[in-house]
């Protein structure tokens, strides 16, 4: 009896005691009613022993016994046979357990004390099963495939998407092809480096909807080796409301307004003809939009393009209204700078310039066409966000001001690019500027997830930022999903789900059904290289870090009943034989 004694059937303790007492009483009474007096005490003692052993048999006392140390090998996918054989030669009769996702490895009684893990390792969501054991991860894995992938699943029609990643151990001569809808090849890269090859593929989205692109690896003959899905959720672009205020008509404004109007954006242009007389143009918008500067009027616009002279002439109420619209409503302002603006910028715009000598600039990775500019560049500032820059020289930038942005540029006479036929460059410049500066659309909810692809029967976690106090989430099967809130941040929630169905699924907030989160579920045969790599990484990180613990495991083992039985038998035998002798 090393440690304390516990009774396995302890809940029957009192009934057993009562019965034992009753039995004792019965015996004693029987004994006293008999006439023989010889050995009475001895008989009582022996009877007591018998009853005791009987009750102990019923109570089943047990002690804690040390479990002998046992080792096992867990075999996961892609086991290296050599390692297995060498382990088996060291431990001849070692037990092997094969690991299957989402199934228990061992039962409670059967746990080994230390395990060796071979192969790719245990998936991250099953690692809890080997907690508390001494683990040794011996897999290394010979992976050839894409091990890292980075792309943004959501995008807007007409925009470019970039898919970048790392390919580990590329087989020389193979191609990685980005396939679009219908299997059309959009971009490709040749795998010709030795160890890790970084690749970048890009494409432009031409249609709105949910598409399943694919990243296929083809050998030099065109046969497909692997093909993994790349889901994309493409939305249509929103049209902006833009107000343009000019002191005098400018070519730059003329071409810019034509370009924006042709794309469908709603423009209101006011240019001054002479003192007090203005020319108003409403392009794709109705005349109800006024151009008077008041915060309420400016609320309807996403972007204000104004030349520096007009901006300087704003006074008092108008200026305050503009500032309020920027700071509180998020209006974006683009200042068409003139020479005076570069030399002495308007103070509240927050810009500062320094002069330089070059008259034109060519951007890297752009078509080799010189873009005219003024002989100034932006002075860098903590709050300055560059839009166009080359090396460390900033040519177009904006500054955050409250919720809104104020931007400007030293590029000048960009309309000449159009006249010279370089339409693409012109469109690119202005797309960048207008997209960055214009008012951002406020969202109530923001979804994000670690991986854009979910796998069937494996957990998929999503993070939700929302301003709704108590959000309720529904899946595409209209089941309600539990949300786990974050203690520190009241607006942050977590959802974990195990997708059961393949294909496009979605989450919708009951309170705000406008924005749904779409994700794509595929099965575990896809993206094998990446999954293997991640599993190996996780196993390496966590499993070998465990300190060799001295905690021995104990288990309860009941004392063998034969002892009690033999005592009982002997005592009963004596009691029976005693009168005969």
């Amino acid at each position, binding site marked *: 009896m090393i440690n304390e004694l516990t009774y396995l059937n302890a809940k029957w303790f009192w009934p057993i005691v009562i019965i034992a007492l009753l039995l004792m009483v019965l015996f004693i009474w029987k004994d006293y009613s008999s006439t023989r007096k010889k050995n009475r005490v001895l008989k009582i003692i022996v009877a007591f022993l018998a009853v005791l052993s009987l009750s102990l048999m019923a109570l089943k006392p047990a002690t804690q016994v040390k479990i002998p140390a046992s080792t096992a090998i867990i075999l996961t996918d892609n086991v290296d046979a050599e390692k297995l054989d060498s382990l088996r030669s060291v431990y001849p009769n070692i037990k092997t357990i094969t690991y299957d996702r989402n199934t228990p490895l061992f039962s409670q009684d059967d746990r080994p004390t230390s395990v060796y893990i071979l192969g790719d390792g245990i998936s991250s969501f099953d690692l809890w099963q080997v907690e508390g054991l001494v683990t040794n991860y011996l897999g290394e894995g010979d992976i050839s495939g894409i091990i890292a992938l980075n792309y943004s699943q959501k995008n807007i029609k007409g925009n470019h998407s970039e898919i970048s990643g790392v390919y580990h151990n590329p087989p020389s001569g193979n191609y990685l092809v980005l396939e679009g*809808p219908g299997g059309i090849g959009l971009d490709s890269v040749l795998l010709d480096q030795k160890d890790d090859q970084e690749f970048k593929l890009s494409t432009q989205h*031409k249609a709105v909807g949910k598409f399943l692109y694919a990243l296929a690896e083809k050998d030099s003959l065109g046969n497909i080796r692997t093909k993994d899905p790349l889901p994309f959720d493409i939305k249509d672009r929103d049209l902006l409301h833009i107000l343009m205020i000019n002191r005098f008509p400018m070519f730059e404004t003329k071409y810019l307004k034509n370009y924006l109007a042709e794309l469908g954006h709603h423009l209101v242009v006011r240019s001054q003809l002479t003192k007090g007389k203005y020319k108003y143009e409403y392009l794709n918008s109705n005349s109800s939009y006024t151009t008077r500067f008041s915060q309420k009027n400016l609320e309807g616009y996403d972007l204000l393009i104004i030349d520096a002279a007009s901006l300087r002439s704003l006074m008092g109420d108008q200026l305050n209204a503009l500032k309020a619209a920027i700071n509180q409503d998020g209006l974006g302002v683009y200042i068409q700078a003139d020479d005076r603006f570069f030399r002495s910028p308007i103070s509240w715009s927050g810009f500062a310039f320094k002069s330089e000598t070059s008259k034109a600039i060519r951007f890297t990775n752009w078509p080799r066409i010189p873009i005219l500019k003024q002989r100034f560049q932006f002075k860098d500032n903590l709050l300055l966000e560059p839009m166009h820059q080359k090396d460390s020289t900033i040519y177009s930038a904006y500054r955050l001001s409250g919720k809104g942005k104020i931007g400007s540029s030293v590029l000048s006479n960009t309309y000449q690019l159009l006249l010279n036929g370089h339409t693409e460059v012109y469109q690119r410049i202005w797309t960048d500027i207008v997209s960055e500066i214009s008012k951002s659309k406020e969202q109530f909810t923001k979804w994000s997830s670690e991986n854009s692809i979910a796998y069937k029967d494996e957990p998929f976690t999503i993070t939700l930022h929302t301003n709704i106090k108590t959000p309720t989430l529904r899946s595409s099967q209209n089941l309600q999903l539990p949300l786990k809130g974050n203690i520190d941040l009241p607006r942050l929630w977590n959802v974990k789900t195990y997708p059961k169905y393949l294909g*496009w699924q979605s989450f919708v907030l009951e309170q705000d059904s406008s924005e749904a989160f779409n994700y794509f579920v595929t099965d575990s045969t896809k993206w094998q290289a990446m999954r293997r790599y991640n599993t190996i990484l996780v196993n390496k990180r966590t499993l070998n870090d465990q300190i060799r613990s001295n905690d021995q495991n104990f288990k309860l083992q009941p004392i063998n009943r034969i002892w009690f039985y033999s005592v009982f038998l002997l005592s009963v035998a004596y009691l029976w034989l005693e009168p005969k002798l």
Partner: protein
Amino acid sequence: MGMGKHILTKFMNRWKLFLGLETICYAFGAAIFIYFLSLNLMYALIAFLGISIVSAFLIKPWQPNLHRTSQYIDHHLQSAEYSTSLFLKPYDRLSDLAKLQQNKIANNIKDELKRIQPPHNFYRSLFITIGFMALGFIAYFFNWSQYFETPNMTPVNQDIVTFQPLDSLDSKSVSPYIVEQSVTINYPNYTGLKTRHSSTMDINAVEGSRVSWHLKFNSDVKEVMMESMGNVYPLKLLKDGYFGSTVLQSSGFYNFKFNDTLGQSYSSIYYAIEVVKDDAPEVEISEIDQFTSFDFDETKTINFRSEITDDYGIDQAYIIATVSKGSGESVKFREEKIDFDTTFPKGNTTAILMKQIDLDHMQMEPGDELYFYVEATDLKQPKPNKARSETYFAAIKDTISYVFGVEGTLGVDRMPDYFRSQRQLIIDTEKLLAEKADLEDAEFKFKSNELGYDQKALRLKYAEFMGEETEEGLVIEEDIEALEADDHDEENLEETDPLAEYTHDHDGDNEHNLVEDPNLTEDSKNPLQEFIHDHEDPESATLFEESLKTKLLKALNEMWDAELYLRLYKPEQSLPYQYRALKHIQDIKNSARIYVHRIGFDPPPIKEDKRLTGKIEDVKGYRKNADLAEKESNLYIRQSIARLEQFIIEGLELNDKDKKLFEFAGNELAVIAIENPGRHLKTLQQLKSLTTVIEISLELLGDVQNGLHQALPENKPSPHQSEVLLDELNQLLLKELENYD
């Protein structure tokens, strides 16, 4: 007595019978075999007869006669004792012994004859016959005969229009098919091309041709239509089939569709129509310079040749000539239409025409100019194509003022004034050289020297800009020029005289400063700095940038050499130098020019008189509404791509709305495909089959999506709105940043 013979005869008959049966057996077996192979009774009969004849000749069943019979019996029957021949002899002639023998033998063989058989192979033939019959049966069973059949090669007509049923249910009846089809193309009359008949449905014809289709089916059908670019044209049923015709105007695609009597719809594949436009004729003039000029006393005739080509025939060709008299505001124009000297038959595809124009006959005087061009029309109906050549000029030099002809494509003398000085020198030098033969020696030398002096004056003038010292005070021409300079000079009227001289420049027509100073900053408040000519300080006296300075130096050097040769009375040697100097000067002028694009800028309507007066009451602001948004191109194609993706992933069923969508997408694709039919025709057909066929495979959906995606052009970059989540933390952060700012 006759008994023996009788026995023999019986035996012989038996023998013959066996042989006959054998023959027939062979024939029979062969006949059965042939019948089993060919299943044709005729062949079997023929085989029977043939084989029987052949075997009869081989076996010869008629052969056995009594003699042979008896011989045979003698050989084979012991008890005959070789005496059967006795039966053949007449009884009377026999000896007694013979008679005895005869009787004896007759009695012997009567019974024993049954023991022998006549020689025959009947059983063998029977066996062979049965074998052949079995073989024939097996051949029939296993259809070996078809290996021996020559395949009936029906020529597959690729051009035959084949139809696919629109729903793929197994039709119980055989669907109707086309037995006769033809396309007739009637080219327009003026092309002179013969009518073409063809059975291929792809059409390539001139615009304006009339195309007729003729389709004949094997059985009755309810209605036949032609579908093209979204329109449906029914074909008319006439006696001989279905007819339809149209006049071709533009390229496109079409296909046929018909409904049979059971209500089943069938549709064919797409066929292409390519319309070739009738091009305008090409007119060229040769054997004449673009600009010719004549002196008054010359014979003023111009001869030229014009070559006109057209694809289908030229209708007319003539010359349009315009004579201009006078100059300035009193210029008068007179236009005439002149025919060629040579004619050509109307409708020729090429014509080479000559013309000689005598300027005197056109009533032209010195100073007049003639512009002419050749115009040609082709035979196209209803509206012929017209083409014209370049304009050529002929001028009679004016005797009053020396107008030198300018080589070039312009008829108007656009030589700016500022080129005159060096240019004038060149002209004068050339004139001098031309007149050398007429002048006296002394005069020639005098003129050459004068030119040399002019060159020196020019050189010095330029050198002053360089900051080089003047050799002597330069007076003379400069004074006159200075007076003229005041008119030209805008800003520097108040400047001192030295400045006036230097700012007016015959060789340069720019503003007051020739080249803008790149180092000009706002600090240089002294506008005179650019113009003050500081001889003391050579460094600051540079108005030019470095490269221009070297150019001018070069020009000056050339001028030195030119002057040298002129003074040496060798003007022909000085000419090259003068040309080079001119070139350098021109370079300098051009580099300082500023080019401004001509842009169609329409300013707001402002009243001119009010504008100049400064009164603004009548100037009204105005409003303009415009809807410039471009419609999204290829909208239906984009929607189809998205919808197809849904089908592929979710596997839905096509409904009518989708079919309509694909139809519209098909129309859009057809417009794109016209430019590039080879690339998109397959997708077009597949898209059509999506709307018509019921059973659709995933592969087809993927192919169509692929093709549609390829057909779409790249999108223009377009600004979009970004999305931001503004929650409390972000707002706090922004507030903090503002405070920092």
